């Protein structure tokens, strides 16, 4: 039995498996690559020429075109949050206490659920598109052509996308907050008959501007993560169409995981109120 277990760990039996050091090295290398890209992007933010045309295009791509998907996810997120809050208050506190669901719904949505939903939706829709577009440019030598024609690829491709993402994610989050809170209100007041005046009063009484602001700070960070990961994966694409496919998948996976991890640490780091 013992011999069998050792055989399982034998690298000759599993040639794909590599030593842990290999994976640690590969991980650190990738962290270094993203760090360098972030550094170059930040440095190029202040250098001319500013690519206004691409920046405006990306504002539309990231912001305006994400509105339908954000509307749907925020609406159903708000509805389900409203439903569970209603059930919770009704069951555990008692009938009449459901009006206190308002601030809970608003707090949960604006601080956690909407920034995460917006981040995940945009990473799936826009991050993957960035990786696919830049990856295709890479394998067809368009990035080299950019450089040969006097355009720094980081300044031309990464900076406008990162800036647009940084601006549009908080905008989408505010929009999502309104839709989500509206949906929670609709479920509680119009479907379950909770007192409308008390629901609004409690929401306004306990809800603070900082709750919304901290959600916006988070979404701005998510915006930078999505754009940087999408551009980084695009710029390191190799191996034709298969490589582009791999880059898009990796972008969505890495950005989504990072959003969830960073969200936890930001929730810990940002003060509960000001």
């Amino acid at each position, binding site marked *: 039995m013992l011999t069998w277990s050792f055989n399982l760990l034998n690298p000759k039996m599993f040639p794909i498996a590599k030593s842990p050091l290999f994976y640690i090295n590969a991980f650190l290398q990738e962290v270094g690559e993203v760090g360098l890209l972030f550094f170059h992007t930040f440095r190029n933010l202040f250098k001319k*020429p500013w690519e206004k045309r691409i920046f405006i295009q990306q504002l539309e791509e990231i912001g305006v075109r994400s509105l339908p998907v954000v509307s749907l996810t925020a609406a159903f997120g708000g509805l389900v949050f409203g439903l569970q809050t209603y059930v919770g208050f009704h069951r555990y506190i008692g009938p009449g206490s459901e009006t206190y669901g308002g601030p809970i719904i608003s707090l949960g949505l604006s601080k956690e659920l909407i920034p995460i939903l917006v981040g995940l939706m945009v990473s799936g829709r826009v991050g993957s598109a960035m990786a696919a577009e830049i990856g295709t440019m890479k394998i067809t030598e368009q990035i*080299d*052509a950019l450089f040969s024609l006097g*355009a720094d690829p980081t300044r031309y491709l990464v900076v406008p996308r990162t800036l647009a993402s940084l601006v549009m994610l908080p905008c989408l989050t505010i929009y999502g907050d309104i839709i989500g809170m509206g949906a929670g209100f609709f479920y509680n007041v119009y479907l379950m008959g909770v007192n409308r005046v008390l629901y609004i009063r409690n929401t306004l009484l306990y809800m603070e501007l900082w709750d919304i602001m901290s959600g916006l700070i988070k979404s701005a960070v998510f915006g930078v993560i999505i754009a940087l990961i999408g551009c980084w994966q695009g710029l390191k694409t190799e191996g034709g169409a298969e490589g582009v496919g791999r880059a898009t998948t990796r972008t969505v996976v890495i950005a989504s995981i990072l959003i969830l991890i960073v969200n936890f640490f930001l929730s810990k780091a940002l003060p509960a109120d000001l």
Partner: protein
Amino acid sequence: MIRVVDLHKSFGHNKVLQGINLRLKHGETLVIIGQSGCGKSVLLKHIIGLLKPDKGKVLVDGVDITNLKTDELHRITRRFGMLFQGSALFDSMTVGQNVSFGLERYTEFSPEEIKELVKESLAKVGLIGIENLMPYELSGGMKKRVGLARAIAYRPDIILYDEPSTGIDPIRADAINDLVIRMKQELKVATIIITHDMVSAYKVADRIGMLYAGQIIEMGSPEQIKNSENQVVQQFIHGRAEGPIKNW
């Protein structure tokens, strides 16, 4: 004008360039021949500063471009125009925007002047009235010509061609050769062409260099290359499967 000194480049364990030395004079056309995958495009990308060598120098009028920062490098690459193997036209832009791209970054011309120069550059490669077409609406030969129009639009004094005749039929390939010769005569540019098409090489070259095993193994006029005693060169220029080159 351009000097490449002891250039080395490896990708992982693959030693692609192992001590390349070459020189390009004003107004000269140098053709680099060699097998597919032997490092010709890698050499070209070092000359324009797209790749950094592991060792060695690329001197453009005495300035080593291998250690320059991006902005300084772009002041030098302003002098280069490059036609890429697959044309590398920007998919999201019209033909006109593609051709004006370098003009907008490298020159101070007004939008009207840029528009005129775009027309003029396209006319030089025999294309008229296609400014508003998208790259996917063009044939392979037209894409090459638009790529060339983009490369010459801002009047560089060195033009680099990466396999200009690859992927197009022999008649169009010859038309591209004529264009290369005309560009040299009209614009007085120095030219480096990477190819494995010997018909083109003999037609356009002042000198031909053969890249093999990471080094320039032969350099000379087309006549000297034709009469070379090097068996590797002979095997390559006659396109024979038998000979000292085995790794095909």
